[in-house]
């Protein structure tokens, strides 16, 4: 199969996940709850970001057994995270037939210069971004889906909002630029001008654009969808809350009916407590995950 056909199939799976919720899970039991609640996919990992943050140390790809068990119990796509630049972890996940790989800043980066060359893989990749330049560079490397970085494990939506607004606002600016300005813009972002032109033409990223990093309530999901996200990832927000199954279902419904406040009110009743969350300004700068 040609590389371009392969890419279409990779982006194709991302398209199928639109309008859905992808949930972080650490055990087969959680994966089952996620599937039963209507998740479109699960992200298999060893610890949710809130615990990674709390416990410190090096965070790596999840244990093989955990991923295998999760694959066994659910029929929805299973995703897993690798460290930035760690193509060997990615090769292993591909051989295990994981459906999607998240090259993620939530784990400790393995390479401080290079991201994985994602064109080499048959399995699709999602990567995080804080702005349009970062998003387009990851797409140039072969990412089939982009998500905001937000600030994982914070339970605080402010960073995801910032990143989504930066991406969408920048695209709107591109739409008013002439060819010369687009060229200069492409140089500044370090990406091919054709990719920048295509983005301007489409008025959105050329691959599905999802939200992640700090979503904790149905209203958070709705907010991100209204800002331009096409689906949401919920990490610690579900299994760090008081009643994961109820909250998971509520966030799924909020994502489908993100423009309908009546649905949001209905699903937000009797939710139990949300994860506690952190003030971004109180996180020491060297502990921010998004700068990785």
């Amino acid at each position, binding site marked *: 199969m040609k590389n371009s056909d392969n890419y279409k199939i990779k982006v194709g799976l991302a398209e199928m996940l639109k309008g859905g919720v992808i949930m972080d899970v650490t055990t087969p039991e959680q994966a089952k709850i996620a599937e039963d609640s209507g998740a479109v996919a699960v992200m298999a990992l060893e610890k949710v970001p809130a615990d990674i943050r709390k416990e410190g140390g090096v965070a790596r790809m999840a244990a093989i057994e955990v991923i295998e068990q999760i694959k066994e119990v659910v029929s929805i796509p299973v995703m897993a995270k690798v460290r930035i630049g760690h193509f060997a972890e990615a090769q292993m996940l591909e051989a295990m*037939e994981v459906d999607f790989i998240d090259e993620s800043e939530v784990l400790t980066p393995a390479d401080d210069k290079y991201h994985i060359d994602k064109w080499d893989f048959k399995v699709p990749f999602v990567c995080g971004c804080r702005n349009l330049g970062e998003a387009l560079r990851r797409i140039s490397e072969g990412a089939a889906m982009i998500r905001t970085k937000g600030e994982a494990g914070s339970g605080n939506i402010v960073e995801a909002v910032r990143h989504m607004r930066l991406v969408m606002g920048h695209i709107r600016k591109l739409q008013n630029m002439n060819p010369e300005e687009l060229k200069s813009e492409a140089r500044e972002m370090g990406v091919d001008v054709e990719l920048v032109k295509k983005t301007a033409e489409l008025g959105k990223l050329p691959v599905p654009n999802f939200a992640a990093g700090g979503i904790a309530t149905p209203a958070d999901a709705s907010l991100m969808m209204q800002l331009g996200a096409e689906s949401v990832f919920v990490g610690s927000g579900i299994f760090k809350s008081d009643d994961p199954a109820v909250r998971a279902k509520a966030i799924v419904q909020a994502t489908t009916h993100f423009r309908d406040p009546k649905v949001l009110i209905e699903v937000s009743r009797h939710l139990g407590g949300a994860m506690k969350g952190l003030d971004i300004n109180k996180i020491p700068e060297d502990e921010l995950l998004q700068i990785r």
Partner: protein
Amino acid sequence: MVEKKIKLVRTDEKIYEVGILALQGDFELHTQALKRTGHESLLVKTPDELKRVKRLIIPGGESTTVNKLVDIYNLRRPLIEFGRKNPVWGTCAGLIMLARDSNDPRVQPFELIDIDAARNAYGRQVHSFSKKSKISLNGRSEEIELVFIRAPKITRVGDNVQVLAELDGEIVMAREKNILVSAFHPELSESTLIHEYFLTM
């Protein structure tokens, strides 16, 4: 004085030739494909919206999720009743939803077409593929790129089901009366042949 009668049609009452079930999945791609055929479509998320369309596409997505949402939004009964009278086309997950049997307790299909389906029958994402094949419909033939993504297989077809396309020995498109199913994603290819065919059903 002759009174001029102006009939105002509220946009939320307009009737559409075709609607797309938009609970979850690649409904945007169907919207775009229909636009290429010159048709505006309505995204359907509620029973009221279903009343405003003449035919419906159930897009690709996750059938477990769609199955859940259909019940939460009280759409199961209205969808089944709609499909007894009006044209409905299911692609991929949509095919599973229209089948008689999904071979999986997680998905209770609408039983609108006499076929059985097997979910993810080609395997996980690394086994997803695309292949060019000639499709002939309504006397028109086109070579189309058939894109299969974690696709289902049709494991049985009833006597009254018309097979419309096969690929490597598998039935990949079929029709029974007003119900059309395809295991692949025509909305991911350039061709609008199948969308146009559906509009004539």
